[in-house]
Structures are given as structure tokens and as C-alpha cells.
């Protein structure tokens, strides 16, 4: 990653105050502050923590919609058409569009905006590209936090567009309230529907490129195979079927508590807290006080002098006896 560093912040000596300041400005409608805050979230900079502490209680009103599908199935075009439909209905939309990072250089080519440029100057739309930064699963590790920021900023819908996915990038289902899976007509769906994968996480399926032959047939096959999943035919390039898609999303949003959507929010909350707890445990154990002991334990495992289970138990003990603010969180 040849010399591509940007020095950490110089504008404010206190990252926590900087995060609060950015969050407050973003809430007041300052789009630049919102964009800066998303950068802080993406970089997991210290400013992000204070901002997210402030914003989390204000989020939870937006409908988080994941859009996923194979490369070339028309995700970006459909997202653009859906945003246009949301605007026609007098509501607002934010988009987080994730593209893969290039593993060799750590760089990324983010091209989803190409199809979403019609909304320049419209304050009711905010589009942000995000590199996956080495995270598999179709999203970046910070995508959920970015969605929380946009949710708190007041957007009615937050659309999360994944990288072009294969069959196992199903993480978006956990990150969103509702997952839309795009299928192109005649792509061997019968067998794919049986295999565990993308279709398994679909709440709504959009057979896109509906103007192509076989679209209706593909839709009927999917309907027959996946009872309980709404299957629609859309043509993103013309907008055909997009109003119906938005209506399906709205029905689903209204039904979320009844169909256990609150459960998925609970699962999301749990995943977030466990991930943070993991980070904190690691931070604590590699910190100044037990750091040397932690290193010694890891060395012992590497030398096969200690088994990893015993190592984990030992570090757990070190955790409990370290520090005065009770890091394992007992009352």
C-alpha cells in the first residue's frame, strides 16, 4: 500500500468533541458534515464513537432496505429508479453502495454512482459509495454504522446496495430490515432456488430486465418455488414495476413488527454489541498493563507450549483482574 497515508486529524485535538460536533451539524442538515461523519465511520476513527453514541438513539425510524444480486443484474439502475420513485412519493432516500476493494493494492473502483447522477442538487437524496476494505460477505464492516448515521439524519429509506454477489454473500440480510434480491431472467434460477444462498435471504425478489424474454416465466417459477416471498418483475431502465416494488417494500415495513422484523433488529443489535465487545476485549488485553502477558501467552501457543483453550482461559482471567472499571461488565 505504497505511501498512501493521510495523516490523522489536525483540525480538532479532541476526536470525541469533533465527532459530537459533526453529528450535531449532520442532524441540523449540513450535508458536508454528514459526508465527513461517514468518512469517520468508515475509517473507524475515534470521532465516530462519540458521534454514534449521540446518533444511535435517534435512529430506528428509517426502513433499511438491502439490495443484492449477481453482478450485472441491474442493482445500481434499480436503486436509482427506486430512489426516483421514493422522491415522487414525497419521501427521502439515502444510498450506501458497496463495491469490492482490490485485495492487492487495497484500492477500490467504486462505480455505482454512474447510474445515480440524476439527483444532483436534490437535498432529499444522499448517495455514498463505500469500499468493502477486505471484508467478505458483500458489505464493509462499517456499513451498518453508516446506515445508522443516515437513518438518524432523517432519511425515510436507506438503501444498502451490496457488491455483486455470488451465493454466499448473504450478510445484507442481517444489516437490513428488508432484503431485495435481484434476479435476471433465465439465469438458471430453478436450481439456484434450491441451493442455499442468495434467494434464501430474500424478502422480496425482483426479476429485473423484465423486458427480456423469459422474465415472466422466471418470476412464475420463483413464485412456485418460494412460497411467502413476494416476486415482482421490474425493468429498472424504464421504471416499469418500480412503483409496485416500493409498494411491496412499504407493505413489508408496515408488517415488520408482526412478522418478527423486530427480531432481526434485535439480532443486529446483538451482533453490533458483540463485535464492539470483542474489539474492547482485544484493546484491553493488548493495552499497557497486560500487554506483555498477552504476548507471552500468544507466543506460548505458537510454540505449542500452551493449548489455545488454556490460553483463552488465562487471558479471560487477566481481563477480569485488569483495570478498575470492570471491563467484563459485571454490575
Amino acid at each position, binding site marked *: 500500500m505504497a505511501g498512501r497515508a*493521510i495523516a490523522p486529524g489536525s483540525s480538532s485535538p479532541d476526536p470525541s468533541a469533533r465527532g459530537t460536533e459533526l453529528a450535531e451539524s449532520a442532524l441540523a442538515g449540513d450535508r458536508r458534515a454528514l*459526508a465527513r461523519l*461517514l468518512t469517520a465511520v468508515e475509517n473507524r476513527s475515534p470521532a465516530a464513537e462519540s458521534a454514534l453514541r449521540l446518533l444511535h438513539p435517534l435512529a430506528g425510524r428509517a426502513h433499511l432496505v438491502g439490495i443484492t444480486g449477481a453482478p450485472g443484474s441491474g442493482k445500481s439502475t434499480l436503486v436509482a429508479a427506486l430512489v426516483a420513485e421514493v422522491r415522487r412519493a414525497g419521501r427521502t432516500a439515502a444510498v450506501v453502495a458497496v463495491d469490492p476493494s482490490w485485495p492487492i493494492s*487495497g*484500492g477500490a*473502483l467504486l462505480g455505482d*454512482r454512474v447510474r445515480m*447522477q440524476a439527483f*444532483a442538487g436534490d437535498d432529499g437524496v444522499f448517495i455514498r459509495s463505500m469500499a468493502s476494505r477486505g471484508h467478505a460477505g458483500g458489505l464493509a464492516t462499517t456499513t451498518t454504522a453508516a446506515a445508522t448515521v443516515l437513518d438518524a439524519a432523517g432519511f425515510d429509506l436507506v438503501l444498502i446496495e451490496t457488491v455483486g454477489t455470488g451465493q454466499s454473500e448473504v450478510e445484507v440480510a442481517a444489516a437490513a430490515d428488508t432484503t431485495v434480491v435481484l434476479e435476471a431472467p433465465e439465469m438458471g434460477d430453478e436450481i439456484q432456488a434450491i441451493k442455499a444462498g442468495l434467494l434464501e435471504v430474500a424478502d422480496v425478489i425482483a426479476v429485473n430486465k423484465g423486458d427480456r424474454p423469459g422474465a415472466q416465466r422466471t418470476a412464475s417459477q420463483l413464485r412456485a418455488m418460494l412460497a411467502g416471498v413476494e416476486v415482482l418483475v421490474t425493468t429498472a431502465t424504464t421504471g416499469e414495476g418500480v412503483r409496485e416494488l416500493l409498494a411491496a417494500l412499504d407493505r413489508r415495513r408496515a408488517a415488520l413488527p408482526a412478522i418478527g422484523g423486530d427480531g432481526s433488529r434485535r439480532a443486529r443489535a446483538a451482533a453490533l454489541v458483540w463485535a464492539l465487545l470483542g474489539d474492547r476485549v482485544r484493546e484491553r488485553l493488548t493495552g499497557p498493563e497486560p500487554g506483555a502477558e498477552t504476548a507471552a501467552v500468544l507466543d506460548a501457543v505458537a510454540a505449542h507450549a500452551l493449548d489455545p483453550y488454556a490460553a483463552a482461559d488465562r487471558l479471560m482471567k487477566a481481563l477480569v483482574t485488569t483495570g478498575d472499571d470492570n471491563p467484563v461488565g459485571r454490575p
Partner: protein
Amino acid sequence: MTERPIKVLIAKPGLDGHDRGAKVLARGLRDEGFEVVYTGLRQTPEMIATAALQEDADVVGLSILSGAHLTLLPRITALLRAKGLDDVLVVAGGIIPDDDVAVLREAGVVAVFGPGTTIGETAAFIRANVRPRD
């Protein structure tokens, strides 16, 4: 995290339909470790400024071959300034006569890369000149 990739927005203002150079540059900068947002052809100054703001780009790279650079590029830099993006590094590439380069510099285009500039040179220039931000 004390280091993050530099984010570069590559846009083509104006009406010419030749985006091969811009695409090659976008890909090349990705290979150099930049996060590149590619926005495509026929971008209006408003589209470019909006994208730069929403993406929180560190750098805006403008590729222009149509000859309209003296009209379009100063409008883009003015819009960026109006949106408070005065710490964004603006560079341009394409066919731009030497006489016009000084005018563009005056308007806030920090560098103009003519034909034959390598990706490596462009990357090195960006790394050396991008403004540190938080």
C-alpha cells in the same frame, strides 16, 4: 486507524463521449491503492460538486477532451468552493493547450496532466499534494 486510502473522484464534464482515458486512470489509481469513485460521462458541474461533497472526496480528477475546459473547469472549482470544499485537490487531464493551463491554475485547478502522463506520475503527484484532513 491512522492511515486510510485517499479517495479520488474521477469525472468527465462536458459533452465528449471519450471516457477510455478516464476509465484507464480510474483503474490505474485503484491499482495504486486509491479508492476511486468513477462517475461517468457528461457530468454537469453540479453533479460533480454534489458527488465530491457526498463522497467526501480528497481529490477531484477531471478528464476533459471537448475543448470546453475554460468554461467548465472554473465553474466546477467555484461550485466546490461554494459548497465549502476548498480543501479538495482538483486536478485535470486531457487535451488542454499550455496557454490555458495558467488560467486553470488561477481558477484552482492545481495540476493539468497532458497526454503521456503515466499513472505512476499522477499517483505520486496526488500523494504529495493531497491535503491532510481528519
